[in-house]
């Protein structure tokens, strides 16, 4: 391959200049309209880091309050807002987004790609995250922050008087941020699956990509249950639908299930990417490939799966039967095994190589030393009898901070020191790095180790003060001292990052002599890679001779620009065979406008300004339609593009070969998880009540089944429309498309007719309420389905959708598969159950 690469025509400076011009980040205020992964990644990381510092300050205030018993530095109410925001911000605004940020920044160069497949989606995710985050954090300055704990247990958090507007801010602000997270997850999954450099088969992928694939998949299955929970929660808060009110058939425990089905995988969503960073850093500083590549991949996948089976260990004290406790104890303990495999992979790699103890490695070693403590206490609390004592005490506070700081923050800081040269070609200070490490390491242990003892001596969590004679005084004082020591270390890292570095010497292109592709380009260049290489190894920079020179001389694929467009390559999922040249959108402000419009929806809903909310909703829809119309499924001027090295690839694909189809598939998988969570709720209520309907009338058998039949018909006509279009019968296709829309509207009306005609009152009891929710879910999705159909119609009329260029239509069909399935399931459940099933 390399021989062939070198034999091609020598690329000129002019070519390089053209490429640079196309990928150039705009200057002035237009800088903020950039959608390039490098810019978005850095903004994302910067914002997440800023939120982390904010939450850290809250923690310092709390530690000051708890330094001595009976302290009155802050009021009980402020303290409660502070600990709620501390947990919320650290989890939702730092731990998850920082990895999305790092992934957006690193993945394209690491995979040998120019960009992620949906740059505007990435930018949209960032702006949503930023606006939502500022909204949630800002609330504390108006004394309106959520104060019910980051877990928001009802009835405390559903009670208007006890929780105030803070709970709405939490629910709506975070739902918004979760949307951003899911958007990023879609982007990351499709990027990893479809945008790898040719030859990078799935078993040659850098471990970081493997981990991020697992994590993004987990986000897809973990966040929707929380969003479903948020929907139920807001419906109760806004309209008094009694999902968590036991007096009307609801149950506070349903929220706990939905929250922890999200909440536990969340821990691994945070932890696995940190391990991914370690998996990049350790081989570099051991100067050898990782030992047991397949072991660690299997361990990551295994952890991902197991993490969905142990949420109940957060509920060991809720009075569940002993058999479930035993099962979930075992599952929780079992997750220690893949974790141990990963730790041993690192130690074995170090033993098999020669370790250079650099600053990243120092933080890496510190991470192993402290994370293992968190892991061991994790096994302890996995055992139900011990958890009965430790649960909701400072023991758990100690445990989780060892896990999150040792297992997540230390690797992130290691990653910052390691990857900093990729940001501006400078190193962070070694001397200050050492001081920061020792301050943070000491601070962590001094602050959190005593907490295990404090907890076992009976100190519960989330207390704004404590009495002075229970043996906690000196332990708490020590924890406070440790927290401030830790903060000093963080401050040094921050100072080192922000200090001007113009005077520092420029770092080498690959300063640590790493083996992976992200080190191939100069940080000033925004193009990801100068030309897209052919990858033959897990560590191409170590194993493929002359790769850097060839890539940077433009001797591989797509060295030049065509039609002034940003281009990348799409390859097949498993073997990374070239499939298409993809053109990604360049700079544009539309994503920012869409994010602002969506933020307005959530903001106005918080204050229950219904009219403004619906206006903002329309604005969002309009913006998104405009965005799609102008930037997706574009029909290229010519069908094919010469990618270089004798490879000619199509510029347009539809169906499973296209990235858009995958994005739809993945989004709808997540969407179905949300739906499944609501169905889980339906059956949950059935299991806890002898008569779940409490004698209330159901929607009857007729209307739900009519609705299902109509949905199936609508789906069938939709499929017919697709094949008609493919056969060239465009006129007939349009007629059939409209027919399908009419059928869909009729189906939605029939779905509404059931509960409507039976006068089911959602406020009266949980049964009518959950029926209305399922109907509502179906109707809203049907509405989106109809909008998509009209969009296809419009595209067809505008000549942007043709028999050969039918991506929109095929994606809509894919959506309709999911819609038909969801409608059929919800119709069948409501109609047949419990009426027929008994």
């Amino acid at each position, binding site marked *: 391959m390399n021989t062939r690469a070198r034999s091609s025509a020598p690329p000129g400076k002019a070519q390089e200049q053209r490429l640079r011009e196309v990928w150039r980040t705009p200057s002035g205020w237009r800088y903020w309209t950039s959608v390039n992964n490098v810019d978005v990644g850095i903004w994302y990381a910067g914002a997440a880091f800023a939120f982390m510092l904010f939450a850290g300050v809250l923690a310092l205030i709390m530690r000051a309050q708890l330094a001595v*018993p*009976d302290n*009155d530095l802050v*009021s*009980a*109410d402020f303290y*409660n807002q502070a600990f709620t925001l501390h947990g919320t911000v650290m989890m939702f605004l730092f731990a998850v987004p920082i990895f999305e940020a790092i992934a957006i920044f690193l993945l394209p160069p690491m995979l040998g790609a120019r960009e992620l497949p949906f740059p505007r989606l990435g930018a949209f995710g960032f702006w949503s995250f930023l606006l939502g985050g500022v909204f949630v954090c800002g609330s504390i300055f108006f004394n309106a922050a959520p104060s*019910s*704990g980051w877990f928001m*247990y009802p*009835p*405390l958090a559903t009670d208007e008087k*006890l929780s105030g507007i803070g709970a709405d801010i939490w629910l709506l602000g975070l739902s918004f941020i979760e949307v951003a997270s899911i958007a990023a997850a879609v982007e990351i999954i499709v990027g990893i699956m479809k945008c790898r450099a040719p030859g990078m088969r799935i078993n040659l992928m850098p471990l970081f990509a493997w981990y991020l694939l697992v994590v993004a998949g987990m986000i897809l299955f973990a966040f929707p249950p929380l969003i479903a929970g948020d929907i139920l929660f807001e419906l109760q808060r806004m309209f008094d639908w009694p999902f968590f009110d*036991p007096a009307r058939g609801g149950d*506070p*425990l349903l929220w706990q299930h939905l929250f922890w089905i999200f909440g536990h995988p969340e821990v691994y969503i945070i932890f696995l990417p940190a391990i991914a960073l370690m998996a990049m850093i350790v081989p570099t500083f051991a100067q050898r490939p990782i*030992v*047991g590549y397949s*072991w660690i991949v299997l361990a990551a996948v295994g952890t991902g799966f197991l993490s969905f089976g142990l949420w109940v260990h957060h509920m060991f*004290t809720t*009075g569940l039967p*002993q058999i479930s*406790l*035993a099962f979930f104890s075992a599952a929780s*303990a079992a997750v*220690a*095994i893949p974790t*141990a*495999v990963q730790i*041993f*992979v690192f*130690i*074995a790699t170090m*033993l*098999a190589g020669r370790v250079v*103890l650099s600053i990243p490695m120092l933080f890496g*070693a510190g991470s*192993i*030393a402290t994370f*293992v403590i968190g892991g*061991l206490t994790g*096994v*302890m609390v996995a*055992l139900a*009898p*011990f958890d*009965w*004592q430790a649960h909701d005490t400072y023991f758990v506070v100690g445990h989780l901070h060892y896990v999150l700081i040792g297992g997540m923050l230390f690797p992130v800081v290691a990653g910052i020191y390691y990857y900093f040269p990729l940001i501006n070609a400078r190193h962070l200070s070694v001397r200050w790095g050492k001081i920061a490490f020792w301050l943070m390491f000491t601070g962590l242990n001094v602050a959190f180790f005593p907490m295990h003892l404090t907890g076992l*001596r*009976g100190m*519960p*969590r*989330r*207390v*704004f003060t*404590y*009495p002075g*004679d*229970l*043996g906690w005084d000196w332990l708490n004082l020590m924890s406070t001292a440790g927290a401030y020591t830790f903060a000093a270390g963080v401050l040094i890292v921050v100072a080192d990052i922000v200090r001007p570095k113009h005077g520092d010497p420029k770092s080498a292109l690959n300063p640590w002599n790493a083996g992976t592709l992200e080190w191939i380009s100069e940080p000033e260049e925004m193009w990801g890679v100068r030309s897209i290489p052919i990858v033959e190894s897990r560590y191409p920079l170590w194993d493929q001779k002359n790769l850097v020179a060839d890539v940077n001389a433009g001797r591989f694929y797509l060295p030049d620009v065509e039609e002034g467009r940003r281009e990348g390559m799409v390859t097949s999922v498993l073997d990374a065979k070239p499939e298409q040249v993809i053109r990604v959108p360049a700079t544009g402000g539309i994503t920012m406008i869409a994010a602002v419009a969506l933020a307005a929806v959530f903001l106005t809903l918080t204050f229950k300004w219904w009219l403004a909310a619906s206006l903002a909703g329309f604005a969002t829809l309009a913006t998104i339609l405009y965005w799609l119309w102008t930037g997706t499924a574009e029909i290229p001027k010519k069908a094919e593009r010469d990618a270089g090295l004798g490879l000619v690839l199509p510029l347009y694909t539809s169906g499973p070969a296209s990235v858009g189809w995958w994005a739809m598939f993945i989004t709808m998988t997540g969407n179905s998880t949300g739906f499944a969570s609501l169905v889980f709720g339906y059956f949950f209520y059935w299991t806890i009540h002898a008569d779940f309907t409490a004698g209330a009338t159901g929607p009857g058998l007729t209307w739900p089944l009519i609705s299902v039949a109509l949905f199936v018909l609508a789906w069938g006509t939709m499929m017919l429309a697709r094949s008609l279009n493919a056969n060239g019968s465009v006129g007939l296709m349009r007629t059939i498309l409209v027919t399908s829309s009419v059928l869909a509207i009729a189906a939605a009306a029939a779905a509404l007719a059931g509960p409507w005609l039976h006068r089911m009152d959602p406020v009266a009891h949980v049964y009518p309420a959950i029926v209305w929710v399922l109907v509502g879910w179906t109707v809203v999705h049907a509405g989106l389905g109809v909008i998509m159909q009209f969009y296809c119609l419009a595209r067809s009329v505008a000549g942007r959708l043709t028999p050969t260029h039918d991506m929109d239509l095929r994606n809509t069909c894919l959506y309709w598969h999911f819609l038909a399935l969801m409608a059929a399931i919800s119709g069948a459940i409501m109609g047949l159950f419990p009426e027929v099933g008994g």
Partner: protein
Amino acid sequence: MAAISESSGILTAVSKPLRTNQEGNRPLLHGLWSLEVDISDRSKNIVAASNRPTNSKCIYQCRCIILFLGLALWGCSGQQSALEPSGEEAASVAQLFWAMLGGGAVIWLGLMALLATAIRGKLGPIDNRAATQLVFWGGAVLPSAALVGLLGYALWLMPGLRPFANSGAPQVIIEVTGRQFWWDVIYRLPGGVQFRTANEIVLPVGQRVEFSLKSTDVIHSFWIPSLAGKVDMIPGRTNRLSLVATKEGRFRGPCAEYCGTSHALMAVEVTSLPVQEFALWTERRKQPSPGVFAPGSELFEKHGCGSCHRVEGTSAASRFGPDLSHLGSRNTLGAGILPNTPETISSFIVRPDAIKPGTHMPAFDMLPPDDIRSIAVWLKGLE
């Protein structure tokens, strides 16, 4: 003022036999009371909060000074450590913990030695085969074996920790309902006898008792660390816990699930007594306190205290707030947060929200101070 001296006379007369009974046997625990003289900053809060019209301001300051002294004793109500067990379950779990701690320490030290060796490169690079073997044995086999053993032990332990009596067997059942921010307690004794109290639980040593745990507002969690692990109190559900206290003693049980603003200020005082003394205690609790006939009850009724509280032997019968029938005999006030004296009772009546933010009890600072004082003394006399 005559009323006060009279009622305090009753107070001492009634309390004497009880004191000898309860505390005479346990000088050690009695000592706990006199331990602490700690300066409490919380009283500043109260001063700041009591921004009231002039005529009552002076009274506030008096109250605050009294409260200041009172708060110094706050929390002196027995032990709260899971590592100093006085109950069967707590003892088993403490043992489990020490075993796990030992095992964990060995694992951690071993791993750290390995990590140090790896970093210092003392071993020299090992070959790929040996490295893979290390991952297999160290990462997969060893933890699996350790976990199977540990899990086996814990699961074997579990069924024995909280057995529940057969429906026929006579047993003391204590129904505890979590409220913001106090505990409603109902004793159901064998033979259908029942009585109500609040924020205090007394147990017979060596006998298994069963708790029936509920909540009517938000989720709380019932936890007496020295005796057993915690169980949540969830609205709409009734959870059960059974435990045996193995030693006499006084214990403190904090609410362990975040339940709102004053979650930190919600604890229950627990006393375990020998079986005979427990029987005596229940005998007394079945009757109205002799103190109800003392002056002060008419003020209690006149000012509407009965619309939330119940005092056995008077017309006050509401279940909305804590039952005060034998308030005087409790060691603490306000769910384990204040020592129980007429002064602290007065302060609580005047500005409960200053002591316990978010409490549902309204402030009674509009009442004449003398009335409050009389009510407080009367309540303290309800032994």
